[in-house]
């Protein structure tokens, strides 16, 4: 709004965080669509972190937000380096990534 802008930071990663929460739940399989989405965000964020000029167009806003968070939080960078894609994320790693992301929003 002209007088104040709403912060979307906490909302933009909702789906990404949801995927991580589903990792620890064995009763329902995670859909292929969710895998594709998560992996796209993760790979774009990592590529952006390594070399911003490597990506031209098609960047997801949530990937940029994740890349921003990674740059600000060394610990988040560390835990995400253990994740190549959603299939490689263990429940413990998912918890660790979520904790770091939530700490970023709360700080």
């Amino acid at each position, binding site marked *: 709004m002209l007088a*104040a802008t709403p912060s979307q930071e906490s909302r933009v990663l909702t789906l990404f965080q949801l995927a991580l929460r589903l990792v620890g739940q064995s009763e329902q399989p995670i859909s292929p669509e969710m895998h594709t989405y998560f992996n796209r965000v993760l790979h774009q964020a990592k590529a952006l972190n390594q070399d911003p000029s490597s990506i031209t167009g098609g960047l997801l806003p949530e990937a940029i937000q994740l890349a*921003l968070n990674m740059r600000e939080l060394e610990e988040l960078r560390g835990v995400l380096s253990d994740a190549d894609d959603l299939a490689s994320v263990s429940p413990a790693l998912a918890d660790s990534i979520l904790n770091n992301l939530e700490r970023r929003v709360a700080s």
Partner: protein
Amino acid sequence: MRPRIDLHLVRENLRQLDETTYFSEKLHTFTKKLIGAIDHVLAVPSRYSDDVVRVFADVARISQTYLAGSTTKEAPYEMEYCLRAAIPRWTGRETLITTALTSGQDFHLLPIDPWNFVATAVSGYQVGAYSPLLVLIGVPRIYRHKPIYCIPLYHELGHFIDETLGVIRYSLFVNPPPPGYDHEVVQSHRQEFFADLFAACYCGHASIRTLQTIAPHNPATPTHPATADRARVVEEFLGGIQNDIVDHFQSCLAALGAPNLMPLYSLPSIAQSYDDMRPFTLTSREHLHGIFESSWNYLSETLDGRPSSWAIPSLSDGDIERVVNDLTEKSIRNMSIKERWDSGITP
């Protein structure tokens, strides 16, 4: 509350909305598909986890709130028409605009993307290629038929485009705040500068005149740059004068594969028509957006005593404002009606 119960309640409200008469066909389709997605989730309780249902209930509830505002006859269709005309340059996604009339004086614009969520997390429900973004615009009730005073909606649309493309996020990534600067403040100020420039692309100088009228001497705050700084950036942009902020945003847009910021309006010569109390016949998108600056100037000049056949001395400022806003609203409405007539589409 359990998320499934929340979904039942949202579905009930959506069904009531779907029965309303004052609803466009596109919003009916949106509502029906959303009800279908809720039906699907509720029909198979074991298929989706509580976490998925909880977020979906939240998305559906916000969507329902947005839709509820557009069921009355009070929606400012002319402003919705102008904003719809601006969006395709920036995103290929179909966008449905809904309106909420507010009791305050602030304009706002909030996007929500339920179909991306459904396609990803509620994947058992087949949405196909259906994926319109839903955008809620909040308009002060007293301005709903006052297009000249709704110019801030273009600024709000700028925030929406920024959010959709990730412009300021990218800006912060490639050009982080200098040491010692507060990240949130820098982010907020860049968001405001971008939205100002976006509005200036369509409404020209009128975009910043509006701000100077509302907050002429405001200093910088944690959420907004000083009015004087905002005006300077916009004036330099419109005047073709080099400006570091503008150049930075242009490079961000280029990196994101988005179009650049540039004036996308031209000023229609409305004086002759308005002097005769006739709407101006708009024939181009550039004139459609440009009518805001032309009308703003015409209103200012008439209030300052510019002679015309109808602005006689006994008319109050309020009378003059009403006539000029009415003429502007009718000019936009006539273009909208003609366009629909020519294309044969339903509203």
